[in-house]
Each structure stands twice: as structure tokens, then as C-alpha cells.
């Protein structure tokens, strides 16, 4: 089961953090990377992802950088979001990952 422990923050300068397990069969590959970056680009907030809560953090709006992470299936993706629309952005990317990027 995906574990999403979004911590709430009242100020936009404090990053929002959450983690979710990659459930789609071959991990964060080509199509999911494109979907994730497209989703992230829809928000003004700075959205970063990492394979560990300690980073290193990767810009979730760059498909080239997201692909370099080469996150396999079963990996836990950590998100760090900063910005005015951060809560909506975090909810959107978490939903996308949890949903297996809409892949069967």
C-alpha cells in the first residue's frame, strides 16, 4: 500500500514533504516520467523528488533529470514541494504515482 504522510505547513516557505511507493510495473520509466513532469509543470511550486528522505533532490519538472533517477518498481519516492500552490501540487503528484500513472 502506498504510504503518504503529507505533513502540513501553513507557510509556503516551509517545504511540504510526502512519500509514496511506485506501484507501476517497470518503475519511473519513460511514460510515467513524462506524465509526472507534465503534471508538475502545471504548478508554480518548486517540486522535487528523491529516492531517500535525505535527497539528493531532483527537479520533478525535468524529464531528463527524472529519468536519471532510474527509480525502479517498489521504490519509495519522496517529494519536497515549496510554493504557493504547494499543497495542490503535492496532492496531484501523489495521486498520479499512487494511481500507477494510469497504466494498467
Amino acid at each position, binding site marked *: 500500500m502506498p504510504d503518504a504522510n503529507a505533513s502540513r505547513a501553513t507557510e509556503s516557505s516551509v517545504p511540504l514533504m510526502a512519500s509514496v511507493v511506485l506501484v507501476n*510495473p*517497470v*518503475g519511473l*520509466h*519513460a*511514460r510515467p*516520467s*513524462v506524465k509526472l*513532469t*507534465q503534471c508538475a509543470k502545471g504548478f508554480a511550486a518548486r517540486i522535487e523528488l528523491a529516492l531517500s528522505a535525505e535527497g539528493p533532490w531532483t*527537479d520533478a519538472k*525535468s*524529464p*531528463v*533529470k527524472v*529519468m*536519471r533517477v*532510474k527509480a*525502479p*518498481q*517498489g521504490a519509495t519516492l519522496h517529494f519536497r514541494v515549496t510554493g504557493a500552490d504547494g499543497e495542490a501540487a503535492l496532492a496531484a503528484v501523489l495521486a498520479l504515482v499512487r494511481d500507477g500513472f494510469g497504466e494498467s
Partner: protein
Amino acid sequence: MSEIHRSGRAASPGLAIGPVTVLTSAVARRTTTGDPAEEDAALRAAIERAVADTADLIARVQGEAADILEFQAAMLEDDALAEGAYDAISVGVAADHAWRSALDAEIAGYRSDEDEYFRARATDLVDIRDRVLAHLGGADKAAKITEGSIVAGDDISPSVFLGADWTRGGAIALAAGSPASHVAMLARARGAPMVVGLGPLSWNGPPPALALVDGDAGTVIFDPEPETRRQFEHRMAVASAARAIADAGRFDPAHTANGRRIAVLLNIAAPEDLAGLDPAICDGIGLVRTEFLFEASHGLPDEERQYAVYRRILDWAQGRPVTIRTLDAGGDKPIGGLTIRGESNPFLGLRGIRLSLARPEVFRVQLRALCRAAVHGDLKVMLPMIAVPAELERAGAMLDAEFAALGAEGIACARPPLGIMVEVPAAALRAADFDAAFYSIGSNDLTQYTMAAARDIGAVADLNDTGNPAVLELIARTVESGRARGVEVSLCGDAAADLRLTPALLATGLTVLSVAPVAVARLKAAIATVNS
């Protein structure tokens, strides 16, 4: 000129015959302007034009092809891809050289990845690289692929594939490549047979004129003799008639004409083989080869990595039985740092369980990972190349020890049932002597050891026949031993997918057959016609 047999990995099913088009890459040279600002502008313009090309292509295709091109477009539009190139240009490097170096570094990163899926993305990056180079005037010239031809080469990019017409036949035979590549997905979607991993394709003299591609078995025959070609064309005719019928029933459990239920399992060589497959097409996985984990480039895999892979396969199976074979190195599968080099006859040497028992420190890691994975599904563990009961007993004692050690450490684990692969005639003759939880007949080696004929030595290949009564008798004896001891007997060699043998195999009493995913539908259809 004699025919040339090559075998690799099946990447897209089906049979094809056609003239050979050899993919060549000739590098054109570009003269640099020598001005960093102009070189920078040249690269930006070339990338923009490459994005526009990709958009044009996207408009003309649908489905999977469009998804692949959208991925390429997203990568091209991302400034992060060219960052290194622009940096190099600013210090005086020519645009084409800077771009090629930056992309080659990116490609190398993909090629060295542990995950086959990510490795396969290297071809997409090559495609992106070459499309931009084409606009910089430094491109590798794309070969013209005539329709219906067998494309032979090192690897092929999605745009070269999409640039050709596959509606009138044709197939792909690659020295490198991967079943997880975008081209392999496209080939499966378009019905173009494809074989990868054939090894270096070099010809003494002119390249072959004609080739037969068997995308089910993963084999290619270049310049076939007339008789070989005639037989192949006959198989093509039979296959196309059978395909339509078979596809309709692939989700149904297999039954013979007289109602005997036959379990159809999958053979897989890596978890990537399961991508996009619905577990409902099979009754489980009859053979997971674990050699892929031990590829030389990565060194020996640790317990965590093995556990993660085994668990992924069990998760996919959703409770269906999964038989994982312990490392079967040696013979024709050398592994650097593990197998013995220079054995006079590697097939009769230190391979399979013999090697695992000789290298207990490596074997233990695999047994631990298997015990941990066993809590996540119906796992069975199979030992390859067993010849005498003592080998099973020693491996069983090691499994017990690792299971106990994990338990003592408080790590979740289960002791999976331990069975043997029956591929040495001695084991087939005396199967009842083994205290095995199941028998899985490895028909490839059982045939070659019984007939003393290798299938890759053309002059004796006709002797390498699983349908020979001697081999069938060994299979029948194993089935009988299984019945007497009340344990399951399955067959997981290539013979299971050879539909000419299906009646003979079912006549031995076998009720479990394990085949490559591509063969499931037609095997089920073939079973339905057998009265046995």
C-alpha cells in the same frame, strides 16, 4: 555457401522470411564555425528542428508509437539534456562534437543501469542524438529499409523503425538490443518478428542475401539452404492459420480434446519479460532463470537486490506458483569471476548445482534471498543439473541452515519447497531416488546429454531431437516417478513450445508445460486438439 544459424533472445513473436538489409552507420563530417556564439545558436536551432520533426512524426502515428515519440520530444525540449553541450561550446568545442559527447555520456549512463528497462532507453537517446546531429549536418546516415526486408544490425532506433513500412512483412535481427526496448514494443504491436542479442554479426565476404527469422524461438538463419527455407515456409503457413484460432483462447485454462486439464506455465529470463503481461494467461511461472542477475558488468548481486527481484516476480504472479531456478552458470553460460575458464568440455564440467555447491558463499546469498521472498507468494526453488541425490541433500541442508539463520535474526522468511531440474539422464533414470518436492524436466539438456548431440552444431543438430523415443522414455519415467511419489512433474524446455511434440509429450502423462510468454496462446490451442 552454407547456411548460418544464430540464436539470441526472442523480442517479438512470429516467423518472417526476406532479403537482408544491413544497417550501417556512416558518419558525415561537419565543419565548425569556430565561434562559440554561432555554435551555440546552431545547436539550439538543430534541437528546435528535431523537436519539430518529432512533432510531425507524432501527428502521423498513434498509440504506443506516439507515446514513445512524446517521451523523446519531452527529453529534447528539456534544457537539462543539452546543458553539458552548451557548457562545452562556451569553451570552444564544436556544436556537433559537444552534443555528441553530452549525449554519449547520457547514453552510457543508461547502458550501464542494472534495470533492463532503463538500459533499453539508451536506444531512445541514440535516436534523439542522431536526429539533432542530422540537423547539424553531422548525422549518421540512416539506412533505407525496403519493405518486407530483414533488418540486420547492431541495434535499431525507434525512428528508423517507424520510418519503415512493416505492413508487408519484414523482421529485425540484432547483434545487441533488448526485448524491453521501445523498438521491441513497437515490433510486437506491429507484428514484426524480432530477435535480439545475436552477438556480433560479421560476414566473411558479402552480407547474406536472405534470412529466416524465428521470433518465437529467438533464432535467425542467414542464407538458408532450399530445404531449410521450404520447411520454414511450411511452418509460416501453419502458424498463420493457427494464430487466429489461438489468440481467441489465451485466457482460458488449457484442456485436451478429451478434457484433461493441462497447466500452462511461463518461462522467463528476467522480470522485464512480464511487463505488460496479464497473469491470467497462465497457471503460474514454471521457470525463472536467475542468470540475468549475475551479468558480469554488475558483479555478483547482493541479497537485497535478489530479494527485490524475486519479490517483484511473486507479486506479479498474484498467488500463482512461481518456480525460481538457482543459478545455472557454466556450460554455455559463463559468468566472469564464477565459472571456470578453459574447461575442455564445459557442458560436462562445473556447472549448475555443481558450481553452486563449489561456491557456497555465492549460493548462500541466493538461498537467503529466496527464503525471504518465499513469504510473498507460492515460491518453489529448483536446482539445475542435479545428477545424484547427494547434491539435493547438500543443497537442502544449506537451505535449512539459511532458513534457520534468518529466523534467528528475526527476519521474515519461509522455507520454499526444493525440487530438481531433471536434465541429466542419470536423474531421469533414477528420479524416484531423489527426495525432491517436484521434478521439472529440462528437455534441452536432457536431449543433448541423451543423444550426445548439441543443437548448435549443425552437422549433428538432427540428432538433437526431443521426439526421439529414448528421450521420450526418460521423460515418461520421470513422470511415472512423480506419480509414484505424489509430486508434480513439469517440462520447461524448448520442446514444450514445439507444437509438433505436444501429442508425444502429453502421451507421457505430463500435465504441466512451461513455455515462453509468446508461446502460451498457440500451446493452449495445440493442447485442445490432442486426445490424450
